[in-house]
């Protein structure tokens, strides 16, 4: 019966397309979160006292202004990704923010208030070193840019170049930094490592060299790392070998050729072993000299506030232990902020007067560290003058896990931004658990309970649980009634980790996101609120991640279980992190120690007695270990071993190989395909998604016969690209290979084509996109595989028993845009028609019906093709604006799209991630199983009621009439 209904549904949804959202549906099922990435430079906008902006330039090449009250974005500019858009420097003066972009390629000025571009100029080529603002007579008018071999000065107002000079001896001297003290001179500081420092003073007016000196410094190798300019132009350097401070006055009147050495011992200071001391100076205003006070870091947790006074260095204060220090200026006052650890979970920030080192009263701020977060890395202070002229401040703390926390005195967290989410690597969507009461009911009749209890107690349990259910239902009703009286905007459904529960149609899920920084997040898919976070602090920077769901929420009382495989690509060492995806807590299950590097993992559909799927890990000796590896599992594995196969693709050697599991958990290679490395290299391999269901086993032809699909679950699509990138000779290859037998099912070569190739492999089709170098356009190609008019074996599929090769159909199309990523929709039963979700570089997500990518589209329309609802072939694929599922909510730099089925057959949950995260639902065949939002319940029920009463009344009238007639 159910199948019959499904058949009918299929008839209904045979032809359809996605409709765009209506205006009133905006934000109803979808949300977007915008991120900026790990902060590299940050400045508080201070030119207006009441300004609420903080400017951030990030490692993701984003320049943005954040609202300091809420943490939201005022504006954001996303530059090109990669080194081309890399932000080298951020200078901030008044309303202008000056950026140097792309290793000194561009100089840009932004208006801080509105985020508009003031001007942009292209700089001369050369590797960028340093930029600084140059002031004269109290006003800042210029910006100096130092490159490897040139120095140039630009006007701040329009970016025009004032002068440009070649740096002398730039082949031998490494010019590293530029400094201006506001006295009409610009100093370029260069170094010949372990020999001498070169100091060149240029005149601000015409770029004339005023003075050029070289100073002996055989102990110095890097100026930026170990030097700073303080006071009235004194270059101060620190040497860890001696250990001592060296000073040199840049003032041109002096002609010393030696640096003054002050041994640290003479100041009574000692450097922590193996620590390179660091100097921190501060120049409150570019038109004036820097402060003569500076920080010297002598150890990981030891800072000193020193003062340079008439050639003498005075220790103002010793901070130990201290984690971070920072200078900040408001008005005339400059303060030093020091963060020091308080206890394990909290640290305190205190303000000190920069001039005296005295502690300012009532300036303690407690920063509570998240136990699931990282250590603080940087601190940015926004000081302000209170009415009584005392200093108040807010602090922005950046932690190792790329989190920004904005705190107010005395420790109130105003907002946090999880910038790690700007770089999601992989994700999964996990069903939420049932509500507590439902779970209780299920647990009560679990196998354990039944054994322990007798009949009577079971009856009582049953009654009591029914009572609980009734109570829950009544309270639910009461809440509904209560909420209905309030206006809609006031009703808030706060989602917290405690009240998480699955909804009727399983539309709300837990998004488990793994970020490149090693921080894991659990996000509610309905609202986008972060429900848990967990920072793994020992994750290497170039780790490979693989996330697997070992146990879903369906096996109460066993908690759901996810396993994250983290592999360090350099050392090959692999660790497993096992956690509960709903609460983010680390599982008590201890993962196996993995002494050998792991090559791949394989999640089997086998379960152990606790319903956890078995994970097989293949190490570099091709030995297999199982997790969990209980006796039960090993026994099952022994039974199943002959039907467990796995494949490995080594792109560095161009080798695909297949292995079979032996009963002793060793492996045996059964096939190998070598793709010659000189000609082509393997770019990617795509299998089918394990949770994919295909409802229809074939396609109905116009003459009502069936063309059966070739649904090989073991099929792999291997993409290769030619090593020759010449546009005439480059090609893209697609190899369809059976992962069990290694049999090549089909091979297609796209000549005069180039990557990057985006590929989707599902059901019986493969869709891929490439750049055609011949026609200079993006093209889509689709391959479909069919068994023919008859099924070879309709009950079981075995790759080992497939004598007939499938029929292969292929067709190509022109696509008007480049694409960033591609994924196919996925639904519970696979009845709904499929769509391709295509992430475009413009930030749109296009939902393209698979119907348009169908190799059976005829060139000449016939009666039969019309019967099949085939669209006549047209080489161009259109982008229709109503196909964008994210309307105007552009997603910057889409990297991946994750699709997940919901409880409703019509609905597929979609998460697109990149710099931003966007979640929505798509209905590829419209909502055939749901009443519409604007369904008129009132009208229908009133009509029904009216009809009911009408029948009652007319029945009565008819009776009366009959009786009367009988009397007559």
């Amino acid at each position, binding site marked *: 019966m159910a*199948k019959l209904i*499904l*058949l009918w549904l*299929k008839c209904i949804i045979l032809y359809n397309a996605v409709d765009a959202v209506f205006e009133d549906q905006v934000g109803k099922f979808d949300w977007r979160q915008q991120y900026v990435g790990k902060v590299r430079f940050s400045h508080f906008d201070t030119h207006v006292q009441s300004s609420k902006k903080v400017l951030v330039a990030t490692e993701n090449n984003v320049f943005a202004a954040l609202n300091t009250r809420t943490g939201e974005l005022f504006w954001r500019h996303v530059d090109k990704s990669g080194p081309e858009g890399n932000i080298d420097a951020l200078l901030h003066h008044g309303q202008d923010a000056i950026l140097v972009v792309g290793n000194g390629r561009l100089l840009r000025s932004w208006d801080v208030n509105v985020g508009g571009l003031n001007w942009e100029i292209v700089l001369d080529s050369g590797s960028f070193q340093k930029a600084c603002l140059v002031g004269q007579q109290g006003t800042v008018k210029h910006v100096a840019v130092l490159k490897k071999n040139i120095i140039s000065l630009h006007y701040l107002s329009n970016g025009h170049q004032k002068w440009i000079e070649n740096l002398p001896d730039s082949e031998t001297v490494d010019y590293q930094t530029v400094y201006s003290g506001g006295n009409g001179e610009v100093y370029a500081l260069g170094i010949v490592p372990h020999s001498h420092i070169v100091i060149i003073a240029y005149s601000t007016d015409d770029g004339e060299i005023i003075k050029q000196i070289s100073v002996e410094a055989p102990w110095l190798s890097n100026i930026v790392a170990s030097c700073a300019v303080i006071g009235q132009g004194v270059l101060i350097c620190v040497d860890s070998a001696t250990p001592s401070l060296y000073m040199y006055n840049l003032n041109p009147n002096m002609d010393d050729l030696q640096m003054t050495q002050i041994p640290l011992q003479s100041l009574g200071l000692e450097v922590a072993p193996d620590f390179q001391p660091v100097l921190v100076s501060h120049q409150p205003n570019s038109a004036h000299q820097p402060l003569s006070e500076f920080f010297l870091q002598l150890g990981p947790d030891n800072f000193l506030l020193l003062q340079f006074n008439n050639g003498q260095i005075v220790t103002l204060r010793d901070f130990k232990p201290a984690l971070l220090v920072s200078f900040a200026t408001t008005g005339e006052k400059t303060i030093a902020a020091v963060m020091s650890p308080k206890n394990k979970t909290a640290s305190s920030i205190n303000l000190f007067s920069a001039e005296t080192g005295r502690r300012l009263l009532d300036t303690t701020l407690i920063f509570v560290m998240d136990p699931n977060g990282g250590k603080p890395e940087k601190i940015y202070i926004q000081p302000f003058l209170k009415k009584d002229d005392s200093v108040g401040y807010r602090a922005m703390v950046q932690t190792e896990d790329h989190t920004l926390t904005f705190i107010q005195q005395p420790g109130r967290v105003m907002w946090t931004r999880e910038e790690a989410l700007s770089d999601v690597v992989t994700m999964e969507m996990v069903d939420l658990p049932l509500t507590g009461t439902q779970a209780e009911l299920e647990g009560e009749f679990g196998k354990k309970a039944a054994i322990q209890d007798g009949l009577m107690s079971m009856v009582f349990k049953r009654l009591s649980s029914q009572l609980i259910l009734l109570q829950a239902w009544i309270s639910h009703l009461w809440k509904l009634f209560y909420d209905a009286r309030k206006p809609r905007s006031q009703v808030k459904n706060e989602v917290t980790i405690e009240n998480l529960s699955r909804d009727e149609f399983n539309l709300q899920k837990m998004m488990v996101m793994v970020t490149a920084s090693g921080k894991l997040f659990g996000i509610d898919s309905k609202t986008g609120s972060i429900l848990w976070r967990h920072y793994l602090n020992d994750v290497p920077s170039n780790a*490979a991640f*693989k996330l697997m769901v070992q146990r879903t929420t369906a096996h109460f009382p066993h908690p759901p279980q996810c396993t994250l*495989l983290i*592999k360090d*690509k350099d050392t090959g060492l*692999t660790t497993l992190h096992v956690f509960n995806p709903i609460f983010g807590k680390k599982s008590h299950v201890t993962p196996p120690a993995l002494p050998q590097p*792991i*090559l*791949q993992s*394989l*999640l*089997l*559909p086998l379960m152990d007695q606790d319903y956890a799927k078995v994970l*097989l890990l*293949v190490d570099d000796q091709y030995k297999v270990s199982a997790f969990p590896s209980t006796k039960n599992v090993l026994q099952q594995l022994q039974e*199943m071993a002959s*039907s*467990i*196969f*796995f*494949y*490995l*693709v*080594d*792109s560095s050697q161009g080798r695909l190989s297949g292995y079979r599991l032996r009963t002793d958990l060793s492996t045996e290679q059964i096939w190998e395909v070598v793709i010659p490395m000189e000609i082509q290299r*393997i770019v*990617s*391999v795509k*299998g089918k998604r*394990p949770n994919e*269901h*295909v*409802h*229809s*086993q*074939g396609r*109905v*032809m116009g003459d*009502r*016969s*069936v063309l059966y699909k070739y*649904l090989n*679950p*073991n099929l792999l699509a291997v993409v290769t690209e030619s090593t020759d990138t010449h546009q005439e000779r480059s090609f893209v290859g697609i190899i369809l290979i059976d*992962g*069990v037998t290694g049999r090549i099912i089909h091979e297609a070569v796209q000549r005069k084509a180039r990557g990057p190739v985006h590929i989707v492999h599902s059901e019986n089709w493969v869709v891929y996109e490439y750049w055609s170098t011949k026609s200079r356009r993006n093209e889509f190609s689709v391959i479909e595989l069919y068994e023919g008019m008859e*099924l070879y*074996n*309709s*009950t*079981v*599929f*075995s*790759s*080992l028993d497939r004598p007939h090769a499938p029929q292969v159909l292929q067709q190509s199309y022109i696509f008007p845009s480049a694409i960033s990523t591609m994924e196919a929709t996925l639904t519970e039963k696979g009845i709904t028609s499929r769509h391709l979700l295509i992430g475009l570089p413009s930030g749109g997500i296009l939902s393209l019906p698979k119907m348009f990518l169908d190799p059976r589209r005829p060139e000449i329309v016939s009666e039969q093709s019309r019967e099949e609802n085939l669209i006549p072939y047209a080489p161009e694929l259109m982008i229709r604006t109503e196909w964008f599922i994210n309307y105007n909510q552009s997603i910057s730099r889409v990297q991946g799209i994750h699709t997940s089925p919901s409880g409703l057959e019509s609905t597929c949950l979609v998460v697109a991630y990149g710099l931003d995260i966007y979640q929505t639902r798509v209905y590829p065949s419209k909502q055939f199983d749901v009443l519409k939002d604007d369904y008129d319940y009132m009208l229908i029920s009133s009509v029904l009621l009216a009809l009911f009463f009408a029948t009652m009344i007319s029945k009565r009238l008819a009776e009366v009439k009959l009786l009367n007639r009988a009397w007559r």
Partner: protein
Amino acid sequence: MASPGGQGGGALSTRGGSGARRMKWALELSLGNTRSRGDRQGGQGDVVYPIGYSEKPVPDTSIQETDKNLVEKRCWDVALGPLKQIPMNLFIMYMSGNTISIFPIMMVCMMAWRPIQALMSMSATFKLLESSSQQWLQGLVYLIGNLLGSALAIYKCQSMGLLPTHSSDWLAFIDPPQRMEIMGGGMVL
């Protein structure tokens, strides 16, 4: 002279001078009238016959046979009814075409339903044909006619594509094949 109402009800009396004296004419509805009793008593032997009554029997020659023929004819009519409808049905079929829309569907339903209904009430039809001598033959013809009618309806359904005779009609009932091998893996991490 005679009232039309009197013809069936009673005898029209024209005899007796005394009655004629009093009124022009009278219709005697009841035979047991006091006045006519005297009349009857007066003429004991002769019976008052109704108008048009003849004492001599009229010889009946052909009525019996024609009746039988008529019944037979009537029964054949009944038996051949379904067959006669077939050309009509063919015409309707031709006219309605093979597209699936409400009117052709209604017609096909009618066409299919009528023979089935007839076949269901076969016993009633047999009762009708009981009086006929060729009852069994007629029954057979009737049955064949109806069967032909329903065959025609089925053919129509077939040509409209309503019968699940193609493999595509059973496609939805094919279960996905079971996997014999478990396979996984990927690029070397």
